[in-house]
């Protein structure tokens, strides 16, 4: 394991231990009850203890496995990919935030187009048309075919009015 991997493993182990600690402390607010009449907190507390023990053991194990070898340099291509991953995650998280305001077609188009851009498109016009097609196609598929009530605004009403 090189230094970079070691650091990543440590961060993940600490995060897992942090989650376990948070979960265990949260269970303390719940009623425990008795083994015969278990309260809502009995099983979560048991799980919390097991989680704490196992993540602590994992953290110690990762910490003791000392890194060997030098840190490898991240290639420009790799760095670019990390940005793309972050971008897709932002798009995924942004979708629920803009859905109610920009409505379905607008938000689907924005998120779809942004993601296509992140994948380094060969043709910008093609990406634009594809994301527009996806937004309209998904709207028709879900609202008409599957009967899902999607947030509708001017564009959606217009589509219904022209008989789509």
């Amino acid at each position, binding site marked *: 394991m090189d230094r970079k991997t070691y650091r*990543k*493993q440590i961060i*993940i182990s600490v995060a*897992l231990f942090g*989650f376990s600690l948070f*979960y265990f402390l*949260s269970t303390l607010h*719940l*009623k425990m009850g*008795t*083994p*015969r*009449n*278990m*309260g*809502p*907190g*009995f*099983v*979560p507390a048991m*799980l*919390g203890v*097991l*989680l704490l023990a*196992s*993540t602590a*053991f*994992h953290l110690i*194990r990762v910490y003791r496995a000392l890194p060997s070898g030098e840190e490898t340099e991240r290639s420009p291509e790799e760095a670019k*990919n990390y940005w*793309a*991953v972050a971008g*897709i*995650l932002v*798009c*995924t*998280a942004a*979708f*629920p935030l803009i*859905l*109610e305001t920009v409505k379905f077609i607008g938000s*689907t188009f924005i*998120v*779809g187009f942004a*993601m*296509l851009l992140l*994948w*380094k*498109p060969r043709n910008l016009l093609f990406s634009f048309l*594809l*994301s527009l097609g*996806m937004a309209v196609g*998904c709207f028709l598929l*879900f609202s008409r*075919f*599957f*009967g*899902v*009530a*999607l947030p509708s605004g001017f564009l959606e009403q217009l589509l219904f009015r022209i008989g789509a």
Partner: protein
Amino acid sequence: MWEITQGLLSGFDAALTPLYLFYALAGTILGTITGVLPGLGPLGAMAILLSFTLKMDATAAMILFAGIYYGAMYGGSTTSILLNIPGEAASVVTCIDGYQMSQKGRAGAALAVAAVSSFIAGTISILGLTVVALYLSDIALRFGPSEFLAIGVCGLMFLIRMTGGSLLQSLIMTLIGMALGTVGIDFLTGAERFTYGINELGQGIEFLPVAMGIFGIAEVLLSVQGKEVPKSARKVRLRELLPTRKEWKRSIPSMFRGSFMGFFMGLVPGPSPIIATFVSYFTEKRLSKHPEEFGRGAIEAVAGPEAANNAAVGGAYVPLFALGIPFTPAMAMVLGALMLHGLTPGPNLMKEKADLFWIVIASMYIGNFMLIVLNLPLVNVFVNILRVPQRTLMPIIVLLCLIGVYSVNASLLDLLLLAIFGFIGYVLRRAGFQVAPLILALVIGPMIETSLRQALKISGGNLAEVVFRPICLSMYVATLLCFTVPLVLKWIRHR
């Protein structure tokens, strides 16, 4: 026997209606496509389509998912043989000799043998599923909370053992899955747990955003990291698809061995189709008269593993139908689809909704037949799917995940959970964690808690009474042996 015949006939009667035939066809085609595309396996496809099934009836959803699962197992072999690219993990073994056969100009024969193996294995495993599930569900009707607790606990322990990778990491994933399963209103006392004032969390963390995030979004994020390589394969002509008499003679016993082996391995919790292919490969190598040909294009090495991975699918359905417990992540998806329709699989469902069980069984036969009839002539079409660039495909998958999750509950929280679990799945998978136990524990965890609390209430808080029941004890002992025997063997070898 009469019950089986009657059930099957009524199942075929319903499954041969145009609507169910359409879903069987759609499932097999979608499954084959996902099997062909590297990265997007049956799990990803099921996760994406889970929300779509809400608008279908439960039977149609089951038929679609069965088709996807079978189709993916078969589709994976096509790219393994022609391009040396395993469409999904269960096809890795097929790459070894399948691609070598392709290099020697026997791609058609390898594809035909893979298709026939899949068909035979599918048929045998469906027969096994019919008989074993019926028999097991009769027994399971007599099970109480203690037995269901034992099945749940032992199932998860087996899964931790069989998943591969670090045992500790798998244990942590299982415990996190179970912890997530405790979120929401407690079913016995009505108390809120871990909701932190968010009303929507009272219903608990839904299976759908977690599964779609971990298997759908995370898969897309991982694919960004990988480099896309241009794929091109030689066209296979129809007349090339016929194996020689010698090839048939060598592959038929392997098909049957692989089928039986795969079916029984499918009954074990864990990634059974993958394990079954490896076990079958090494068994065939040991039994072969020409072991030196293995790795250089031995037909048995295609027939056996291909039969094994298909048969394992049928085997995996047994615990779900008979006991209501999914032993593989794909079965957790099937369970999720049933639960979306308000159905809880298990022995009661098999009695009360027998028609659903028989239609699904009949559709599996039909789907299997469709696979062999459609996929061999269309092999070149499916290979061409690989030419669709990832930059077009992946954003579509993300959008389908987003809209799919939203369409179930129209919940913005579900969408946020999808993004969060997509990120968590990506980070954990990059760090080498197996995420399948998390998903299964999320599904099985609440059942374990319910069974434990009910069992202890009945026994008056006496844990010994819960553990030392004949069926429970034998299951706990088997699980203990599964963990200790390898350690003892290792210790003996060291000495």
